[in-house]
């Protein structure tokens, strides 16, 4: 132990305490920074020289303190859990919000919904059955029937618009994911450089981890950490980011609603196309997304599967097509064989043709039209009955209550979408609670506690003060030794 080594010890403490105080300052500065993980200056005592030798001056006391590094107090497992839960929650939330929008567009159960419009139409037919000779009653039937056809078409085009918007947002989200992946790759490269040069890249790691979590939310990515501090981001088992390289994703498949719904009535039937996410470098290879918002949107965009369990939007469109077809078929079947009201002196009217028709080349729900132009062309009388017979109109008016009526199809569609919405919303809520719990655990570990940092500041300040006191007392000791020793009798 040399005479002056105590000075060095005190100095090392002064340096270490100041550095620790700086770290506490950095923590406090970032108390509200998203993604910031608290840091700690790691202090290690410096051992004394322990080499035994004849003239060794070591007295076994250590040589002070040193900062060995600034560690990031995150927890890999908690981070992983947050990402897994985020991927699941985003997936369900995307689906639930698509169903909620779809459901809100139905306008049921409301005073102005399609169900009420159908009822109004059937009632108008009954009124016409009561007064076949009144053109006003016929005009009401035509108006109400047109209103129903318009409403079905509006519902269909709402669904189509939602599909178009969902597809556009899928493309936007995939672009966002690609940008985030490129950022992660870039940060990986910089982190590696900094770590190789012995620096601390904690803040860059925070940014990178935030981006990886964002990727989990978008495309359900998972992360795997390398020894050298870089992170690989995996999607469906393949690398989205591998070290300093990122691989882009691309959206493929149906580009229009018509392509997604297919055409079940065509000969041969045209199956609906899926929208898929593939690797841009290898378009034949699907990305196999199993979580995240994009995967949720892909299920929403999916084609109908014939059992009602396909994509939300295409299934809704298929239901509307069925509804339009059933309405036209049932009304036409009765209307075709009936006779119009004859103009006296004629006592037998003309045979009524189709009441509803479809525009060619359009899906039934969109192409449904009232083929009759004037009230006089509505056929209300049974063939062979009297001129002012209204029995066919009455039979058409009764269709609403019959089994397999358009009303019952619509009610089934509404209830189906409603129960799916309810169940998905409930599941999305549960997933969100799980995600929030995982995030709160992660935050509990990683976020800055101001009280704790204040205490740390106190401790480091006191440490600094004490080290300077040590310095002073050694100085005084040396002063005694140097200036006051050997002056006896002077």
């Amino acid at each position, binding site marked *: 132990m040399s005479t002056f080594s105590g000075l060095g010890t005190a100095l090392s403490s002064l340096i270490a305490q100041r550095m620790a105080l700086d770290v506490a300052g950095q923590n406090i500065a970032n*108390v509200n920074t998203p993604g910031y993980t608290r840091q700690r200056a790691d202090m290690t005592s410096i051992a004394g020289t322990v080499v035994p030798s004849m003239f060794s001056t070591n007295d076994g006391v250590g040589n002070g303190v040193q900062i060995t590094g600034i560690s990031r107090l995150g927890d890999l497992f908690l981070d992983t859990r947050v990402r897994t839960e985020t991927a699941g929650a985003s997936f369900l939330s995307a689906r639930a919000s698509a169903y909620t929008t779809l459901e809100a567009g139905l306008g049921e159960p409301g005073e102005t919904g399609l169900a009420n419009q159908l009822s109004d139409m059937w009632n108008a037919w*009954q009124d016409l059955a009561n007064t076949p000779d009144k053109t006003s009653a016929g005009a009401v039937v035509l108006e109400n029937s047109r209103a129903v056809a318009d409403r079905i078409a509006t519902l269909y085009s709402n669904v189509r618009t939602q599909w178009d918007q969902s597809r556009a947002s899928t493309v936007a989200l995939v672009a966002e994911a690609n940008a985030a992946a490129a950022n992660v790759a870039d940060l990986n490269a910089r982190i590696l450089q900094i770590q190789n040069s012995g620096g601390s890249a904690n803040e860059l790691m925070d940014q990178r981890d935030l981006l990886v979590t964002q990727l989990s939310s978008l495309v359900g990515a998972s992360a795997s950490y390398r020894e050298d501090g870089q992170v690989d981001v995996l999607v469906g088992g393949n690398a989205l980011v591998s070290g300093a390289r990122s691989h882009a994703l691309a959206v493929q498949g149906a580009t229009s609603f018509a392509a997604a719904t297919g055409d079940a009535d065509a000969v041969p039937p045209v199956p609906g196309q899926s929208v898929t996410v593939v690797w841009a470098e290898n378009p034949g290879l699907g990305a196999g997304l199993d979580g995240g918002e994009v995967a949720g949107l892909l299920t929403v965009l999916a084609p109908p599967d014939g059992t009602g369990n396909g994509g939300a939007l295409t299934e809704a469109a298929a239901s509307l097509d069925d509804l339009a077809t059933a309405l036209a078929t049932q009304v036409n079947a009765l209307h075709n064989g009936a006779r119009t009201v004859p103009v006296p002196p004629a006592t037998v009217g003309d045979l009524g043709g189709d009441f509803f028709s479809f525009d060619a080349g359009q899906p039934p729900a969109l192409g449904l039209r009232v083929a009759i132009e004037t009230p006089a062309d509505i056929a209300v009388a049974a063939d062979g*009955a*009297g001129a002012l017979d209204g029995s066919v109109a009455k039979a058409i008016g009764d269709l609403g209550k019959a089994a397999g009526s358009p009303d019952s199809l619509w009610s089934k569609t509404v*209830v189906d979408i409603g129960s799916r919405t309810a169940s998905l919303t409930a599941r999305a809520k549960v997933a969100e609670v799980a995600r929030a719990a995982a995030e*709160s655990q992660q935050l509990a570990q990683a976020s*800055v*506690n101001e*009280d704790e940092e204040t205490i740390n500041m106190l401790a480091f300040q006191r440490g600094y003060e004490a080290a300077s006191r040590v310095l002073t007392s050694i100085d005084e000791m040396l002063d005694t030794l140097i200036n006051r020793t050997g002056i006896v009798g002077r």
Partner: protein
Amino acid sequence: MIPRVTHQTIQRQTLANLQNNLSAMAALQAQMSSGKKINVPSDDPAAASDVLRLRSDQRVLAQYARNVSDGNSWLTTVDSALNSSLTILRRARDLTVQGGDGALGPDSREALATEIEGLREALLDQANTTYVGRTVFAGTSNAGRAFDDTYTFTGSPTANPVERRVGAAQNIRVDSDGAKVFGEGAGSVFALLDDIATTLRAGGDPTDRLDDIDVHMSNMLQEVSSVGARQNQMDRANAAITDTKLTVTTQLSGIEDIDLAEVILELQTQEVTYKGALGAAARVLQPSLLDFLR
């Protein structure tokens, strides 16, 4: 393990709780302001299906009620036409009996014949009674008159009666078969009256036609009772419709209307909870160690 607590976790937790409380309040307020429990099908899919069915029932019942009131008008028209016809025919019968008096001079006979012809005219008018443009005795005919000047019945066959739908499976006939009530062509009550007038003018004895008049009268009486029975049916149907309407409205209200007292109570409770959460947030987020260090 006791989790580490930081200001950030408290902030997040507080925010999430406030958000939950507020959204619960918003849901209750939506119920209060709309008065409905079910605003979208997912609020209660099973109940939504009931609501759709009951709403449609309501509209169908309203239509049945319209049909009933239309049918009632038809039946009333038929009934009053039949009663007037009976009065006319009774008068004609009285005149015929008078015409049987052999002491009557030609002038008196002429007067009787003229009056009977006038009665025939009135009877034909009754037979051609219309309700909003439809001849009530000619069924589904569009000729505009049930009987023309040659007493030919223009109506359609009895197979196609005019009916009104008053229930899911109940139709009530609202017209009357003119051919059955008044007879057709030469066999009609009009031809009979003409015949009597001719007999009177020719100085003959018309009383041997009294039996024919009685036959027509009994036909009319039969129809009057039939119309009365149908009107009774109509009234019963109307009562049933009113009853069912009430039931459906009650059911609908039970399913979709809120229990106001309950919602108000829940809203109050929620408000207290929300205020509590706000108070807690204000207290917890305020202090830190820095407030106490000098």
